[in-house]
C-alpha cells in the first residue's frame, strides 16, 4: 500500500535558505511526513537512501566539477527534478562573481588557490533537464505547498510567472516606481512572493527572477530617466538573475 512519492532534497552551491523554507512549513510538516516518503535529506536525516526518487528538490547552483557529476547522478535517479530556488535556476546572488575573472575572485579570499576547484556558478539546468522550477530566493512557502499538492495530484502546479506589480496591485499598494520615483524592479520580476517588499515600503529587488516575457530593456530605460547611471542599472540586473537570458543584456557582458 506504500504509494507515497519518494522524495529527496539536495544542496549544492547555496545558502540552505530554500531547505529552511521547507522546514519552516511548521503547520504542514507532520502532514508532509505522512504524504511523502522522504528518502534523502542530508540536513535532516542520517540514514539516506540513494536508490531512486520520484521527486527531487535541488537547492543551490553548480560551481565545481564535483557538483556537475553529482547533479547528473541525481538526474539519472530522479523522475521529477525540481530546481528549488533561484540558485538552482540560475546561480542567484553568487553568480555576481561571474563577471569577475575567476582567479581574481579566488585570490581575494584564499592565500592558496591550488586546492580550490571553483568555476563560474550556473543553474542546474545548464547540465541536466529540469522538470519544474520554483522561483524565489527563497521560494514562497505557498508555492512549495502548491508544488507538493500538485505532485500528489500528478498535475502541473499553478505557479504564475507574471509581474510582481500584479500582486502589488492586489495589495492595493501605492506604486513606488511611479509615485515615489524609487527604482523598483517589480515590472520585470516574477510574482510569487506576494509583493512583500513594495508592501513593506521597499522596492522590489528582484529575488524571484525574471517574469515570463519581461521587457528588461524598457525598465532599464525607465531607470535611466530616473537618474540611475549605467553602473547602478547593471547592479540591479546583475543580482539574482544576471545570468538569465532575459536580463543578460541589462546585466552587462
Amino acid at each position, binding site marked *: 500500500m506504500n504509494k507515497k512519492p519518494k522524495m529527496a532534497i539536495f544542496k549544492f552551491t547555496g545558502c*540552505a*535558505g530554500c531547505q529552511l523554507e521547507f522546514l519552516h512549513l511548521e503547520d504542514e510538516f507532520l502532514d508532509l511526513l505522512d504524504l511523502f516518503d*522522504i528518502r534523502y535529506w*542530508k*540536513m535532516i536525516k542520517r540514514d539516506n537512501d540513494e536508490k531512486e526518487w520520484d521527486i527531487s528538490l535541488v537547492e543551490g547552483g553548480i560551481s565545481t566539477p564535483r557538483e556537475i557529476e553529482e547533479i547528473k547522478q541525481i538526474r539519472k535517479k530522479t523522475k521529477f527534478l525540481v530546481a528549488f530556488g533561484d540558485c538552482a535556476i540560475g546561480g542567484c546572488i553568487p553568480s555576481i562573481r561571474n563577471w569577475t575573472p575567476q582567479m581574481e575572485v579566488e585570490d581575494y579570499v584564499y592565500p*592558496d588557490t591550488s*586546492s580550490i576547484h571553483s568555476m563560474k556558478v550556473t543553474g542546474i539546468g545548464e547540465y541536466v533537464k529540469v522538470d519544474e522550477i520554483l522561483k524565489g530566493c527563497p521560494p514562497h512557502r505557498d508555492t512549495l505547498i502548491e508544488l507538493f499538492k500538485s505532485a500528489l495530484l500528478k498535475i502541473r502546479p499553478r505557479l504564475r510567472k507574471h509581474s510582481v506589480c500584479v500582486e502589488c496591485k492586489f495589495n492595493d499598494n501605492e506604486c513606488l516606481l511611479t509615485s515615489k520615483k524609487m527604482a523598483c524592479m517589480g515590472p520585470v520580476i516574477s510574482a510569487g512572493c506576494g509583493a*512583500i*517588499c513594495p508592501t513593506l515600503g521597499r522596492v522590489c529587488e528582484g529575488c524571484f527572477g525574471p517574469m515570463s516575457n519581461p521587457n528588461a530593456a524598457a525598465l532599464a530605460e525607465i531607470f535611466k530617466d530616473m537618474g540611475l547611471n549605467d553602473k547602478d542599472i547593471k*547592479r540591479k540586473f546583475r543580482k539574482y538573475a544576471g545570468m538569465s537570458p532575459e536580463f543578460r543584456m541589462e546585466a552587462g557582458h
Partner: protein
Amino acid sequence: MKEKTIKVDYIARVEGQGALNLDITKDGKIENLQFQVFEPPRFFESFLIGRRYDEVMELTSRICGICPVAHQITSLRAIENALCIEPSQQTKDLRKLIAISAHIQSNVLSMYFLSLPDLMGYESIIPMAKDHNKIVKRGLKLKKLGNDITDLIGGRAVHPVTMLVDGFSALPSKNKLQVIRKRLKEAKQDAFDTVDLFSEVEIPEFTRKCEHIAISDPKEYAINKGRFKSTEGLDTEETFYRDHIYEKQAAYSTALHSHVRNRDSFMVGPLPRVNINFKQLSSDAKEAAKRSGIKFPNYNPFVSHLARAIELVHDIDESIKIIDRLQLKEEKREITCKSGYGSAITEAPRGSLYHGFDLDNNGIVRGADIVPPTAHNAYNIEKDMNEFVKTIIDLPLDEITLKCEMLVRAYDPCISCSVH
C-alpha cells in the same frame, strides 16, 4: 599502523557540506584528523566589491539561510560604523527583537531537529515524530514562534526585507506584536520543558578547557553589540577584531581556520555566551540553569545544547521586555556617503560573527571581510575531536563515528556560512 579509520563522507544533520576523517593507530594515537569542509565557496567577499552600501545587507543575507538576520544586522552595523551613523533606540530594539527571534528559530532547529534524534536514538526527526509526537510538536511550535516574529518584523522568515541602514522600511503592527507577546508568554512553559529535556538526556562526559569567546555587555545579554571578550582575558572593541583574530588555510577545507593571535583555536556559540554572560541572563533563565544541575562556566561542548535551551528561556523573557517598551514611531532617515572602514561583531545563533567593509566616497564597497561563527569554530572542532576520540577509543567503530558526528552537531556548524 592504522587500526581504525573514521570516515564520514557527508556529515548529516548539519547545514552544508562537510566530511570527517581520522585514523586511530594501534597505540591509540589519532592521526590525519580532518574536519573537511568541501562546501564550494561563493566568494562573497570578492563580489561584494563594487556593490553599493545599501544592498550589502541584502547580499550578505544570502550567506546563510538559517541565520540571515545575523548577517543582515552585522552588515548594517558595519556599514553604519563606516558612515558614522548611530541608529535610534527604536531601531536597536527592533533589531534586537528580530535577532532574538532568529536565535529562537535557529536554536530550536538545532536542538529538536538536528541533535535530539542522536540523543534519543533516532536517525532523524522523521521516525521520532511518530514515537515522540508531543516533543516534536513542541519543537515545531517553538520554531514557528521564532519564525513568526521574524516574519512580522522582517517581512519573511528567510532573508527578511525590512531592515535598512539606520532603520526599517516598515514597522510591525502593534496589534500583531501584542498577539506575539501573548504567544511568547505561553511558550515560556515549552522553553522550561526544553531545558528539562536537555538536562535529562544523556550527553558524553567530556571536558576540554579551551578559550571561549563572545561579545559581552554589562547591561544586557549581548546579541547585536558588545565588547569582544574571552575566558582567557581577551577584551576589546569590535574595531580591533583584526588585531586579535587571524585565519589560516588548510588544504583540505574551504573554510578557513581562525586563531587568536599568539594563542590557539577558540570556541564561539551558545556555550561561550552563557559562560561569559551568565550574569546578564534573565532571572528565569538563571533559575532554569540552576535547576538543570549543570554548573557554568562549563567546558563540555555537549553542554551547548543545554546552553541553547537556557538561552531560549532568556530569549522569550527578553522579547517580551522589548515588546513592552517599543513605542513604534515612524522615523526619518538621512544618509550621507563618505569613505571609510567600518566593522561590527554580533552574536549569530552559532556565535560571534564579524563583518568589515571599506567604502569609497560614493558608498561603493572597496573591500569586504567576513568571518562567520563556524569559521571561528572549525579549527576548534578538530581540536575537541582529537581529545574526545581518546575518551571513546574502545567503543565499536560505528559508535565512535556517531559520537564524533554528535560532537560536530553540538557546535551546530553552519558550513555554508563558514565558507561563504
